[in-house]
């Protein structure tokens, strides 16, 4: 059931969405630009009968999620870029132990302590696993407050369906800005029973073990192969993107999140080139088939990111040399100017 429209920040919308999705265990640690999310949970989780803990660190927060998830509960943590780096240890363990957990990253400028401006510099980290070992996490990339909320709700279903961590990759702008938003639950999915959760070995059932250690020779290889089989299913079923005006376009822009909104402005303003847009909604799995489809139809691509160029590598991998791929980006805070996108697109269309 869709809620009424309310004016709300992205960070608070993410918190509200998590509670609507049945998350009752949230563990956070302060970091800008996601503090409103943690504060929202502190205020509202007790009302929902849930647990809020301000952890002693991001390491502790993600491991509290590990524990709550191990009992079968829906759980979430959130942070901004440097804090997400700290969570990578826990995300790797969750991936290996196949624990569903939702992690929100409200990205800011990096590397290092960086700054607190909106950025998209964590794409590599998010889409390549991020921590140690052979694993991936599903990554959802919202471009509005309403979509931020919708993706958080859906992230819980995806996490439970595939028994895997799911990242919602927003940026400081999406987190901080207010927009009108409705909260619409995702279409119901049939979710597997959590017959692995720790509940105490009662009624004669065998004990359960949540583990990520496989010492016996070959056991880890076998386990990681199973993970890869799961990832193959996700790659097949879950890539999603929005396509706008690609048919008529000379140049197809590729952008996600806040960058995609800037690209929509550029499309409206463009006089010298007909522009289309592919907006990935899932960054992993990357919608490579859609990108390849338009490459095969002779489109040229311009990737726009608030980074020094990260998703552009996935576009090039998808295009496989069939089409030129240009890049406009601004790393470590702020966004590329519309004028720069228009100039580069016009040159690309001519060239």
């Amino acid at each position, binding site marked *: 059931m869709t809620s009424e429209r309310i004016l709300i920040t992205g960070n608070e919308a993410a918190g509200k969405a998590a509670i609507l999705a049945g998350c009752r265990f949230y563990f956070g640690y302060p970091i800008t630009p996601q503090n409103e999310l943690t504060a929202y949970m502190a205020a509202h989780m007790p009302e929902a009968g849930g*647990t809020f803990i301000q952890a*002693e660190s991001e*390491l502790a927060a993600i491991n509290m999620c590990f524990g709550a998830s191990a009992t079968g*509960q829906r759980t979430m943590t959130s942070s901004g870029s440097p804090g997400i780096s700290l969570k990578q240890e826990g995300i790797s363990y969750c991936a290996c132990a196949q624990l569903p957990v939702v992690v929100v990253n409200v990205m800011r400028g990096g590397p290092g302590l960086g700054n607190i401006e909106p950025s998209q510099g964590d794409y590599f980290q998010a889409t390549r696993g991020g921590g140690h070992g052979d694993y991936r996490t599903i990554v959802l990339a919202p471009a509005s407050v309403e979509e931020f909320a919708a993706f958080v709700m859906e992230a819980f279903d995806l996490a439970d369906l595939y028994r895997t961590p799911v990242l919602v990759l927003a940026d400081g702008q999406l987190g901080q800005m207010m927009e009108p938003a409705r909260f619409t639950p995702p279409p119901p999915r049939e979710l597997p029973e959590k017959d692995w959760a720790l509940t105490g070995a009662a009624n004669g059932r065998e004990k359960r073990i949540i583990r990520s250690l496989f010492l016996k020779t070959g056991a880890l290889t076998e386990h990681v192969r199973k993970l890869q089989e799961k990832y193959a299913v996700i790659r097949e079923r879950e890539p999603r993107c929005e396509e706008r005006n690609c048919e008529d376009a000379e140049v197809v822009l590729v952008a996600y999140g806040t960058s995609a909104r800037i690209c929509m402005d550029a499309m409206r303003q463009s006089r010298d080139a007909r522009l289309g847009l592919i907006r990935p909604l899932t960054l992993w799995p990357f919608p490579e088939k859609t990108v390849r489809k338009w490459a095969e139809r002779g489109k040229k691509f311009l990737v726009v990111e608030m980074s020094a160029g990260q998703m552009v590598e996935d576009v090039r991998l998808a295009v496989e040399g069939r089409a030129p791929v240009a890049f406009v980006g601004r790393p470590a805070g702020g966004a590329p100017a519309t004028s720069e996108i228009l100039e580069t697109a016009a040159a690309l269309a001519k060239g």
Partner: protein
Amino acid sequence: MARTYRRPKTLLPVSTHYCAGCGHGIVHRLLAEIIEERGIRDRTVALAPVGCAVIAYDYIDVDFSEAAHGRTPAVATGIKRALPDHVVFCYQGDGDLAAIGTAEMIHAANRGENFTIVFVNNAVYGMTSGQMAPTTPVNMVTATTPRGRNPANEGCPIRVCELLSSLERTVFLARGCVTSPKNIRQVKKYLLKALDVQEKRLGFSLVEILSPCPTYWRMMPTDAMAHIDNEMTKTFPLGVVKDISAEVGT
């Protein structure tokens, strides 16, 4: 003749991977005994640390979760908050608890989390082959203190119970050892007391157990036991360090 000694059902009838003379087997047995005696197997969740005891779940027949190195109290916090009526034990060694997991230990204790840490202190990292631990006594030779632990360079051993005792929501902190039947029975009493504290939801409890590592102490098992009694207890005195269960329980 009455049979007075048998294997608790919760202790699986398998050989362990522990070295000869190691104390982990004794502590495992004590845990299995109290789980069985209190009839709590069906609502116990235990946590296995990174360290020699990581596969404790192969020996103790209850639901188990591993935890990343040192994060055990954070994972236990998530579990216990989700299962407040269950009994949660963190089984942790000295490196896991008092080096890499210091923050998680202190803050779980400070929040008064209602679980029990079973802290096996053998003063070295066993699994990684005998490096200095935060609890390694001064002058002890380890793989990473080849000239002996020097306070000027490595600091002095951390006394975990004493360190935690200043936190208001730590309720029961005690230190025992496994060097004799009498001492082992005393450890069991401490574990039962900690379990009571947890069951009554009074707050945080920790039982530290001085335990031998003959392999990396480079000693015969019998000498390692004597070393605990004669030397280690000088650094880590035995006894109840803090017990405010009577005050907070009323």
